[in-house]
């Protein structure tokens, strides 16, 4: 076989092969080709997305580290910072949901603690097929167990997340994990191989043949055949990871540590080439020195293995034994296997003999960037429907209960109850509210964090959908009393070589960017996952956004639950004539039709500013944003969470189903003492935000009357107990185990 043919077998294109030959000024050997094949895979190189990702706003005074490192870092005050990142583990989770999801959480944690930050919270964003499909139910059940067992064993709380079920994810589920860590400003460690002559060490677990070509695997579609190939799967050991984390936390206090990097996708080759490239240096390593757990491993296998729970550590020459001592305490290996050089080359030796040699910068960043063709998909023109032909339902109670019974709206307690949410004793608001709130020990501060996505909106309108996700994430933080400061994205799409998919990708990124820029929330890290397609379907374009907010005073956090009988309930923002894109149409009436709800970011900002200010002033007892299922579901959630009723009346020209179940954006429900109403009204009018009183916290039922010109046109009356029961059992009732 010629080198070119071998390159093709490894997934490299002709263009890429030519580029390699041009760089090396010779044909690469098999080892070198293997290195390029994983480093230039989409998963490691972002070659399909790089050009578009430049559109993200990434700067702000609070940003200490933007995209390009293991994780982004943002200042939260008091000389403290939060490191955070999102990562996908979609393909492994489709093959082995338990291990795939578990190792997703594991890789995420390493990205955080390599930067010197102690992980304090995990979140996840999950997408599966509908639960009536046996395989979807199995994937869901196992992925949740995998995330739980890994996070629980390592002792980092899972404080939030979201899960959606839709046929588009039936063949290709999505498992995105997010992790946050805390670090004092002066303890941040970067992944740089600085200082010629410094020692390059591999620490943690031994290297085996697991996860071979995992990064390349993640960069292709799931088709018959490769679904069964076991080799790309990594196997996680949370205990080892915990040991590694504790050892690293100890190590990173030392001033002689130069740089650290996780060995995630593409293991040794990515960590060595990326750290060398960032410092403008080279690294020479001898693979024979790497501790191995499989026999007769070839140099290329050692270089690209994705065995979990390993790290690359660069320390000042002479401190190797100090590193060993720390890792010995935690029963882990630490071996010097290389040196930082000044020639920019990644030189690979086996027992002292050179077996491969390529420029580190070429591996880490030399991939030819592809500008993909982008074409507006035809389906977008077929999403209109004549709303006047949809009859207004007569039994609104029935619709409300049916919506609460949808797994996409119902309580997710059955999921998050499998996650330790409170270890670490920082969790102030546990899952189930709009955002998780954590206190920061030793300060008055708190942080709020949420992860959000709506693939359906993005399918209906990629640009507006992208905007909506950022707006909703920020709103979730604001109703919790936090000011949004930064976001991390997880971009999950189909095959980017299809122009229609690329169009969705570009437009979603534009929407995310515009909203992030206008709301002043920079993107500090992220992940792209393409090729999320099965034999029959491509997933909905599914970007997710993890967002961080800061509370100056954590005591002033807010939750969604109605608290006090007699409190007045107000709507911040305006009800709009938007029924398109609603889950009511999609799931109850089987009408897939837009337009998706539009977000006017200027208006959104005003509503959020008003809500945040009101919470900070201590005016409100509860706040909750209106999203899927509309006003009626939001009210139901406030009632269920507070185990208390609501009674109200709304005068509106809208159709009752649009008013109740339409998903118009930029709306927040708040409850407050009557006495505070005038202050709130004053604040709102100063900011140009509409406030309407819609009722009171009262009794033990949700009662709402809709009037049009003094005539009652609709009525809801459902006991809170009944709603809670339906919501609680919706997912459970559809599970086989």
């Amino acid at each position, binding site marked *: 076989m010629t080198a070119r043919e071998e390159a093709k077998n490894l997934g490299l294109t002709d263009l890429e092969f030519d580029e390699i030959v041009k760089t090396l000024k010779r044909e690469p050997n098999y080892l070198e080709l293997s290195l390029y094949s994983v480093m230039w895979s989409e998963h490691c190189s972002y070659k399909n997305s790089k050009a578009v990702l430049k559109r993200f706003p990434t700067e702000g005074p609070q940003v200490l580290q933007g995209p390009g490192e293991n994780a982004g870092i943002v200042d939260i005050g008091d000389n403290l910072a939060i490191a955070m990142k999102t990562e996908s583990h979609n393909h492994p989770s489709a093959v082995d949901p338990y291990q795939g999801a578990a190792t997703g959480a594991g890789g995420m944690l390493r990205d955080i603690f390599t930067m010197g930050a102690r992980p304090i919270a995990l979140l996840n964003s999950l997408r599966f097929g509908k639960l009536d499909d046996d395989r979807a139910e199995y994937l869901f059940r196992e992925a949740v167990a995998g995330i739980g067992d890994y996070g*629980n064993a390592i*002792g980092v709380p899972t404080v939030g997340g979201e899960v959606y079920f839709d046929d588009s994810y039936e063949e290709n589920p999505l498992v995105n994990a997010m992790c946050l860590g805390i670090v004092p400003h002066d303890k941040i460690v970067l992944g740089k191989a600085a200082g010629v002559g410094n020692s390059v060490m591999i620490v943690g677990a031994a290297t085996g043949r697991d996860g071979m070509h995992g990064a390349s695997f993640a960069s292709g579609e799931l088709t018959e055949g490769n679904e069964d190939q076991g080799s790309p799967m990594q196997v996680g050991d949370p205990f080892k990871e915990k040991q590694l984390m504790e050892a690293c936390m100890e190590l990173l206090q030392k001033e002689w540590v130069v740089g650290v990097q996780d060995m995630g996708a593409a293991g040794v080759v990515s960590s060595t080439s990326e750290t060398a490239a960032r410092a403008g240096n080279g690294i020479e390593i001898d693979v024979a020195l790497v501790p191995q757990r499989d026999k007769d491993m070839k140099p290329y296998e050692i270089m690209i293995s994705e065995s979990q729970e390993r790290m690359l550590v660069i320390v000042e020459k002479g401190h190797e034994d100090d590193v060993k001592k720390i890792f010995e305490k935690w029963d882990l290996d630490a071996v010097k296997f290389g040196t930082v050089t000044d020639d920019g080359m990644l030189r690979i030796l086996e027992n002292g003999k050179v077996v491969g040699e390529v420029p580190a910068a070429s591996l880490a960043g030399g991939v030819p960037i592809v500008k993909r063709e982008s074409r507006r998909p035809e389906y977008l023109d077929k999403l209109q429907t004549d709303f006047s032909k949809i009859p207004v339902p007569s039994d609104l109670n029935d619709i409300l209960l049916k919506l609460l019974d949808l797994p996409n709206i119902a309580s997710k307690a059955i999921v998050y*109850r499998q996650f330790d949410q409170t*270890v670490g004793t920082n969790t*102030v608001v546990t899952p189930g509210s709009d955002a998780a709130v954590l206190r920061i*020990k030793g300060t008055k501060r708190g942080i709020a964090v949420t992860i959000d996505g709506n693939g359906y909106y993005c399918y209906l309108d990629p640009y507006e959908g992208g905007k909506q996700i950022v707006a909703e994430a920020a709103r979730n933080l604001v109703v919790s009393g936090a000011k949004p400061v930064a976001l991390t994205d997880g971009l999950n799409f189909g095959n980017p070589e299809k122009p229609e998919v690329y169009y969705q990708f570009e437009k979603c990124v534009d929407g995310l960017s515009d909203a992030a820029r206008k709301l002043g929330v920079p993107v500090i890290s992220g992940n792209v996952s393409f090729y999320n397609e099965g034999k029959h379907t491509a997933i909905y374009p599914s970007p997710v956004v993890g967002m961080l907010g800061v509370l100056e005073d954590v005591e002033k956090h807010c939750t969604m639950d109605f608290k006090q009988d007699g409190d007045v309930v107000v709507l911040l923002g305006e009800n709009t004539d938007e029924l398109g894109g609603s889950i009511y149409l999609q799931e109850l009436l089987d009408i897939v039709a837009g337009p998706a709800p539009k977000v006017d970011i200027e208006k959104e900002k005003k509503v959020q500013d008003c809500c945040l200010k009101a919470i900070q002033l201590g005016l409100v007892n509860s706040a909750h944003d209106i999203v899927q299922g509309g006003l009626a579901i939001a009210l139901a959630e406030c009632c269920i969470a507070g185990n208390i009723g609501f009674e109200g009346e709304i005068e509106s020209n809208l159709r009752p189903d649009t008013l109740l179940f339409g998903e118009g954006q930029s709306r927040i429900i708040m409850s407050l003492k009557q006495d505070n109403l005038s202050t709130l009204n004053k604040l709102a009018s100063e900011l140009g935000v509409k406030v309407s009183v819609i009722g009171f916290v009262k009794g033990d039922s949700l009662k709402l009357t809709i009037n049009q010109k003094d005539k009652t046109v609709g009525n809801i009356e459902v006991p809170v107990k009944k709603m809670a029961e339906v919501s609680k059992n919706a997912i459970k009732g559809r599970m086989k185990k």
Partner: protein
Amino acid sequence: MRCAVIQFAGSSGDGDCCHVFKNILGQSADYVFHKETFKPADFDIVVLPGGASHGDYLRPGALAAHTKVMESVKEAANSGKLILGIGNGFQILLEAGLLPGTMLINKDIKFYADEVLVKVENNATPFTNLYKKDEVIRLILSCKYGSYFADAKTIEQLKSQNKIVLTYCGFGKNGDEEDPVASMENIAAIANQEGNILGLMPHPERCAEEILGNTDGLRMFQSILQYFEGGKTL
């Protein structure tokens, strides 16, 4: 009061326990790593914290029970020092034979993390003296192996000697969830015959501050302090 918090490989509740003793109660607290030893005279109370020690490999607590530090823990126990095992710490005490019985996997074979309601069956212990008898308190449960099991004779003994200290009486925030654990006699905590060792599955250290929304667990730590300040009678 001098407190030792044992750090097994994999412990994750060690910091939480230390935080309560030091920052909430203002007492001294030191970590003891599992490869180290200590003398009974060094500490008044030894805490075995939660978290999957040694990866929960073999059985939860099984490997931790055979670490070097456990020789010191046993010595301290035999000389009447207070020993408190929380979550995985309880499982270690069972595996080490310092308390009778064992833990089985939860009835629904899933990890369970939520609030639980527990009843104080015995308030005449160094760990519960500030609770009222039969008082129902809220604590956080977070475990996969929390179903207490023992033979009939042991159960009979625990009952007749009043060594069942806490029992579950409700699951979930409102206490109205189905029991996912199925612990024998609804056992959430037991003490040894002498009364100086307590093992409990729920986490009082996570329920010890207003900002976390629950202070019911704080009284367990205050009880311990009260026991020492009030002249140590078992």
